[in-house]
């Protein structure tokens, strides 16, 4: 992907975006690594590990997404101010 950012004034929010993507990558990759959780044990409340581990990934992914959301909000604001200073939308 060539112009991944494409942000006109570049730079200012780029580091935040790297952080945001770093936060979100585990939420996408970990649930796909089946060998990590394809076992019966340990069980919890009667649930085999295979089932409760995947259920537990949901709140974990929510935490990461909420963090990413607050970071993205700040980054967007920063970008907009940078653009305004740049004089052109």
């Amino acid at each position, binding site marked *: *992907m*060539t*112009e*991944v950012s*494409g*942000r*006109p004034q570049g730079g200012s929010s780029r580091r935040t975006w790297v952080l945001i*993507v770093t936060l*979100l990558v585990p*939420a*996408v990759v970990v*649930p*796909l*690594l*089946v*060998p990590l959780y*394809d*076992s*019966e044990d340990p*069980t919890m*409340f*009667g*649930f*085999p590990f*295979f*089932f409760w581990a*995947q*259920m537990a*990934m*949901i*709140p974990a*992914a*929510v935490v*990461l*997404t*909420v963090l*990413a*959301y607050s970071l*993205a*909000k700040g980054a*967007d604001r920063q*970008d*907009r101010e940078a*653009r305004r200073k740049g004089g052109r*939308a």
Partner: protein
Amino acid sequence: MSGVSTVAFSVFLFFFLLVTVLGFAAARWRRAKALDNLDEWGLGGRGFGTFIAWFLIGGDLYTAYTFVAVPALLYAGSSIGFFAVPYTIVVYPLIFLFLPRLWSVSHRHGYVTPADFVQGRYDSRPLATAVALTGILATMPYIALQLVGIQVVLEVMGIGTGSDSWFVKDLPLFIAFVVLAAYTYSSGLRAPALIAFVKDLLIYVVIIVAVLYLPSQVGGWDNVFATATHSFTSFNSSNADAIAAGQAAPKGAIPPPLLHWAYASLALGSALALFMYPHSVTAVLSTRERSVIRRNAALLPAYSFLLGLLALLGFIAIAAGVKVTNPQQAVPQLFENEFPDWFAGVAFAAIVIGALVPAAIMSIAAANLWTRNIYKAFINRNATHAQEAQQSKVASLLVKFGALAFVLFVSTTYALDLQLLGGVWILQTFPAIVIGLYTRFFHRAALFAGWAVGMVYGTWTAYNNPKVGDPGSHFGSPLDPFLSVPWSDWLPFDTLMYIGFTALLLNLVVSVGLSFVLRAMKIDAGVDQTRPEDYHADLGDEGVEEELDPGAPAHA
């Protein structure tokens, strides 16, 4: 299967009539000037905030798929059935990253459909048409899945069964279908948005009662998992010969190593497919500002948790001794056996309404594609707003009939396969739409070739995939040995993979390779109408309007 009690049926009928009235009344809800243009009919005026969007997008995603199709897989002992959970985990971070860019560029340029974007970005009518047709085609089996969901509930209620005539048998489904078609026709997107409130309320009540009450009825979760696992093991040992001969599929709760990639590719493939369906794009574009999408990506996983518990209703049905030959009936039958009559009626209503809402949204979205990218692009370039809206209304009817055809002619053991078949097709638009949001590297002709290769490979492979134990049958499974071509013998591994995912990989290889070639040959790549900053525009920026002028031509 004897019919249900009058109480259950009356409760069901009450809710069905309630949403029917709401559906028609929705035409007056939050009404702008008139419904006879595409932004109003097809996107509800694009003024939805976080709250309504949460219900609306949730209404899109949690459907008969969740209530009927996924539990059916677990009930039938398909060890990959739980993939729906990682799928709904993975999808939200992807939505978070990709869709705000699509929102921005669409609101800056007045794009109503993904094909509008592709036209603007790649300046290629064939490619935009391919994307539009793929969207319409892929939506049909997805709607068909909803119709199957309605059908099994009606069957369990005993409505129409007990008659040998196919007409009497399918009549209730046709009635539900006609009612749906009629209020979608008159109210557009407002109808499902309003009904989504009733739907979500009902679904939440039913789910919470189901997951709290049912396990205790059958001896707790311990017993649920133990009984399910035991029933699978005893099935496997008593059918060992058939399994060894490939005439039956082994059952299980946890995927064995051979199916690890199948599980992961189904999850990722479904996640990537989900947000390219025209109906997801419709819901996303109908939000008021960019941040609504990100906020929802953080809020919507609340539904995923319930989806996981609902999937396990398939095991609860086993533990409760539900015996049905059609696994799709497992959950409705479980409800009928275990709930008091009146609550069974509520639960049936929840499933049916939960299928009607997405079916309406999906058909509207597919209709928008038809009108914008086929009718207006080829048939009547100077269509008036009223003509556009009229085209969409009629197209939404045709799409629903296409879905009916899938129900009647593509008979599948698992309704879920219908959705996965749609996924095989819609995934082939990924390079043009999603990667296109980031880079203009791809050449338009290369994208078209990649799309064609993916479509042909995916359709052909899916068509030739027989059901286990039924050689010569078609569309029997969404999985296939990875790259099932003669020259793949050298591959160091042997694994099953979701056909849609393999087709997407082929598509990408062709798109990337040909892009290099075409660029080196300096073949005209077309004019890109979007600018890098368009992908970040938000409400309040210059040139971004809350409600777009639908009269502005899609591709200036």
